[in-house]
């Protein structure tokens, strides 16, 4: 795994949930792990809301400078964010804001990213209306690349319907990712899969499975 992993994607693709799970999964590794929440676009469902959980699990969280993680609609990205990016001994996961718009903030950190040791992921949720076709995904990826000044280096099939997700959605997501992968010559690096579905997936898909626990949705949001 590269030292810096940047998680981008469409708003609602599940970037933040994926970033949190990826960070928690990395903790067992030798090096310290930091999660940089650079989402300045969306004031709700940000990964820094889970600061307590993450820090309990030894993930350092860098959000804004207020020390309060909810309800602040000022971008206020902490200069502390430079630390993990420039420290060769730390794993850093960046949760960027959704869409090309959210990715723009990456531009202000581009100059300190370790070029050779940096993965830029695009999270794909084929259940979202704006990211169901190869055309839509091409537009999204080129938008993110244009705004951030970074090239996407890999795909994450994170296709889901929240807790209603079945293997059907995951298969559709996989098909879409394979199309994108062929068209843009990008590897499929991860599958974000609800823990309950991990056993049901075929074993021959390229990429790693990242079991997803849903941390950002409160208990009362589940079920309908």
């Amino acid at each position, binding site marked *: 795994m590269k030292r810096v992993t940047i998680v981008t994607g469409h708003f609602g693709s599940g970037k933040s949930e994926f970033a949190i799970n990826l960070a928690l999964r990395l903790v067992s590794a030798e090096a310290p792990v930091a999660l940089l929440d650079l989402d*300045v*676009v969306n004031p709700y469902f940000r990964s820094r809301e889970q600061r307590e959980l993450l820090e309990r699990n030894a993930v350092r969280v860098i959000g*804004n*400078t*207020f020390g309060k993680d909810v309800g602040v*609609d*000022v*971008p*206020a*990205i*902490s*200069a502390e*964010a*430079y630390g993990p990016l420039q420290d060769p001994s730390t794993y850093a996961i960046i949760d960027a*804001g959704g869409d*090309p*718009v959210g990715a*723009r*903030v*990456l*531009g*202000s*950190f*581009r*100059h300190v990213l370790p070029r050779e040791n940096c993965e830029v992921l695009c999270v794909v949720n084929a259940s979202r209306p704006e990211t169901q076709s190869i055309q839509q995904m091409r537009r999204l990826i080129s938008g993110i690349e244009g*705004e*951030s*000044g970074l090239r996407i280096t890999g795909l994450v099939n994170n296709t889901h319907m929240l807790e209603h997700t079945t293997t059907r959605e995951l298969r559709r997501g996989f098909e879409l990712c394979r199309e994108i992968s062929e068209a843009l010559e990008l590897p499929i690096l991860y599958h974000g899969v609800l823990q309950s579905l991990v056993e049901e997936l075929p074993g021959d898909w390229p990429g790693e499975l990242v079991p997803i626990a849903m941390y950002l949705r409160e208990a009362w949001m589940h079920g309908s």
Partner: protein
Amino acid sequence: MSVVFEKTKGLTEKEFHYCPGCTHGIIHRLVAEVLEEMDLLGDAIGVAPVGCAVLAYDYFNCDMHEAAHGRAPAVATGVKRALPEKTVFAYQGDGDLASIGTAEIVHAAHRGENITVIFVNNAIYGMTGGQMAPTTMIGQRTTTSPFGRNAEQTGAPIRIAEMLATIEGASFIERTSVHNPVHIRKAKKAIRTAFECQQNRKGFSMVEVLSTCPTNWGMSPLASLGWVAENMIPYYPLGNFRNPDKEA
């Protein structure tokens, strides 16, 4: 041991929340230093805007009054009328002053309201996540001008200093920038002159300060400073547009 640098007493101990490379911090410091040097901190009442500087009341070490979006000049008017002997200033961004609060700023100037306004122009809405401001440059991409600002649709960037300079009640109007040390010094001088104007009851004074937004511009702090010099200054020329001493 001699003190070579001391933080101004015009600022509180509170750490700024601003993003790396944002020049709000510099501008806060300039205002605070001027207030301290002129011995006005005990007499000053500042009015904070809605925008990235919404928490300015936590940073300035004087009485502070938070205003609704765009209304800082009206709130400052209320304070100044109630306390004409005190020094009253408003600190506003471009969304606040040049968009939702145009009526308030124009009429504060028009009345010759004896207040000082620090106007921070960074060509974008920072707080709400990088939307287009009236001061956004042509072609500049923002979250609400995703294809670049287009003059046919949204007009050309508004030049506030020039506009306010046409108003009789405006006494001192200057545009400055803080993209390098030379200009930072000039900006401070302008801010000082603006407060002197208020002390001498000359009427309305405003200093426009060109500023950066690395986060929403998507640039490194250094590139942002360059962008101010290369893109903003040619369109927003620096200099004085109104000065009571020169006219006399």
